[in-house]
């Protein structure tokens, strides 16, 4: 199977692949072709693809450089994964400053997409914790970027989608923990209004919040979901056991029609019904709290060879409830959504990243099996709603948004483009910067 595709396996792309194993090496010679760094390919759409051009895979840049166990900071090459970092730091009482829903991403990818997690309302995005990195550009220059030196390049590279040059190594701050466990609670809710109330009530005392929302239920059950919140357990008697490796895998592509509206509806109903009580409490290992899907290797293959999309948008709090209700209404009416729908509020901690996605407001993310035009038409309608609310769509997930919408929702793109390395490009970047 071709490893050099995006997580949604759409669009398909062909590219020459170069490898880089040593941080002191020059960028590989790619002739006339533009290049794009490629980590573990967990971006969903085309931001990690460079169709017809070339990629530089960074998985060989997988070495630690320094780990300050007393102050909690780590320096490593760009291809080191969060998985490898957790195995090193958890036993020493440290954790990632923020983490997405998978640990199988590289540090370079975390910076390039300025990833966010369940603690965004407290800690902001990954870029808020980056102390510095080295950027290797196609002119052979190596620039050490921090919040104090080469600031422009620092800001452009955080959330810069790998376009400003290749990050060879990076250093970032960690978070102190006592053990590997999370004290968590799950609360059922009905409607965006109740979700927002729960978020507001929880944001102060709970470090991690996220909700699953039913994207199929209509009528009285519209907007029902489960609000989850958690804190690192303070109990010092608990272990610092690290996670294991995935045991299950999707060994082949499932038939494209396996995920149909009936199976998805059943899943949503069962998931909501699984929790009987309105409010439950439990103690969970960090691996199952943050990374439930990592236990199945290659779960993206259940969507079949046609692939799938993830749509993630954010809209500001002002008018956000109504917009989210309209968005969710359109999705439920379309019957095109899948079972993995997530809703969360972002906080106001600002990332240094110039092109970063998170802004204060409500974010919704969900998967859609690729049903061709009908799915794309739905996204166009959703984009109109997001646009009208002055929101934006997350480039790391996107395969469809128009150049016009991107440029309107990321007005800083023009400023950003000055920092794009002339030799670097991506399928995404060509799509959103050229008018058809």
């Amino acid at each position, binding site marked *: 199977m071709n490893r050099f595709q995006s997580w949604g396996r759409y669009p398909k792309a062909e590219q020459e692949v170069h490898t880089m194993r040593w941080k002191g090496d020059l960028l590989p010679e790619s002739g006339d072709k533009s290049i794009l760094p490629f980590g573990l390919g967990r971006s969903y759409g085309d931001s990690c693809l460079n169709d017809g051009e070339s990629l530089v895979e960074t998985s*060989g840049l997988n070495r*630690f450089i320094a780990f300050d166990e007393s102050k909690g900071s780590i320096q490593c*090459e760009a291809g080191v994964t969060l998985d490898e970092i957790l195995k090193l730091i958890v036993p020493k009482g440290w954790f990632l400053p923020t983490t997405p829903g998978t640990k199988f991403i590289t540090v370079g990818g975390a910076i390039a997409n300025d990833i966010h997690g369940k603690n965004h309302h407290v800690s902001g995005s990954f870029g808020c914790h980056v102390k510095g990195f080295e950027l290797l550009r196609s002119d052979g220059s190596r620039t050490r970027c921090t919040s104090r030196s080469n600031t422009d390049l620092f800001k452009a590279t955080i959330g810069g989608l790998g376009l400003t040059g290749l990050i060879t190594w990076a250093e970032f701050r960690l978070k102190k923990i006592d053990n590997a466990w999370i004290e968590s609670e799950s609360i059922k809710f009905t409607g965006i209004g109740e979700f927002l109330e729960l978020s507001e009530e929880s944001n102060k005392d709970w470090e991690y919040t996220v909700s699953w929302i039913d994207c199929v239920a209509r009528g009285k059950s519209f907007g029902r979901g489960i609000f989850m919140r958690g804190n690192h357990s303070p109990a010092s008697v608990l272990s610092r056991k690290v996670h294991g490796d995935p045991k299950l895998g999707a060994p082949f592509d499932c038939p494209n029609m396996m995920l149909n509206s009936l199976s998805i509806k059943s899943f949503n109903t069962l998931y909501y019904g699984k929790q009987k009580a309105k409010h439950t409490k439990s103690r969970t290992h960090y691996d199952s709290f943050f990374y439930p899907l990592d236990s199945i290797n290659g779960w993206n293959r259940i969507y079949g060879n046609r692939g799938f999309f993830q749509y993630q948008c954010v809209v500001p709090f002002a008018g956000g409830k109504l917009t989210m209700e309209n968005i969710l209404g359109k999705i439920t009416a379309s019957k095109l959504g899948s079972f993995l729908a997530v809703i969360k509020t972002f906080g106001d901690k600002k990332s240094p990243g110039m092109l970063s996605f998170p802004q204060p407001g409500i974010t919704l993310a969900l998967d859609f099996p690729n049903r061709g035009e009908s799915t794309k038409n739905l996204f166009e309608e959703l984009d109109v709603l997001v646009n009208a609310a002055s929101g934006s769509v997350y480039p790391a997930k996107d395969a469809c948004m128009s150049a016009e919408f991107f440029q309107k929702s990321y007005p800083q793109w023009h400023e950003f483009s000055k920092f794009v390395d002339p030799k670097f490009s991506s399928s995404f970047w060509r799509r959103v910067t050229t008018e058809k």
Partner: protein
Amino acid sequence: MKTILIIGAYSSIAEETAKLYAAQGNRLVLWGRNLDRLKSIQMNLEVLGAEGVSCFEIDLDDCAKHGPLLQKTVTKVGSLDIALIAHGVLPDQQIVEGDYDAMVESLHTNFMSYASLLTVLAGYLEKQKGGTIAAITSVAADRGRKSNYVYGAAKAGASAFTDGLRGRLASSGVHVVNIKPGMVDTPMTAHLKKGFLFASPSLVAAGIVKAVQKNKSTVYVPGYWRLIMFVVCSIPEFIFKKTNF
């Protein structure tokens, strides 16, 4: 804590093996051609838990340097418990069939330098009366094949040398392990199309650590290669010579 010498330290298999030894809190000595690269590995091993790492720059094709560098190494670190010989090149068969010099050069790297290192290490460990030498040969050593007999021949030589040395050193309490990896997904095989038989360097590394710990004589990593090579070696020559293996 053991002191482990890794020769050809920036081959992927060697580096992964060094990581496993580092995580156990051992002391490591790295030999390789490029000091900058060795330093990158050194920092990684130290973060992973190695109890000290020393690096020595050497062109392993220069066999005359093997003895003096071993002397220098031992002077610095005291004694050696395990030595892993892991360097090598996979020549393009097409090229070495037509280019005499390239053929000799690849034999030199894959066989002569192994023989030299094994001899030098044997002399040292024999006097020390203990320790383990692990040499990475290949499943390609088991039968000469049309598609890569130059590589296979050198590995067959290294393999026979390793096995013979085991007998010589048995009475001195020195153990010699012959490691035969199958196809491994490394930069050496980057140009080959990867089938399901390709193993990751980290899997092979785990096999090496286990084989050394258990004092194995010859191991195939992953283990199913023993069966595959048994079958390959059982095919009668009059059929085998017509295949493109």
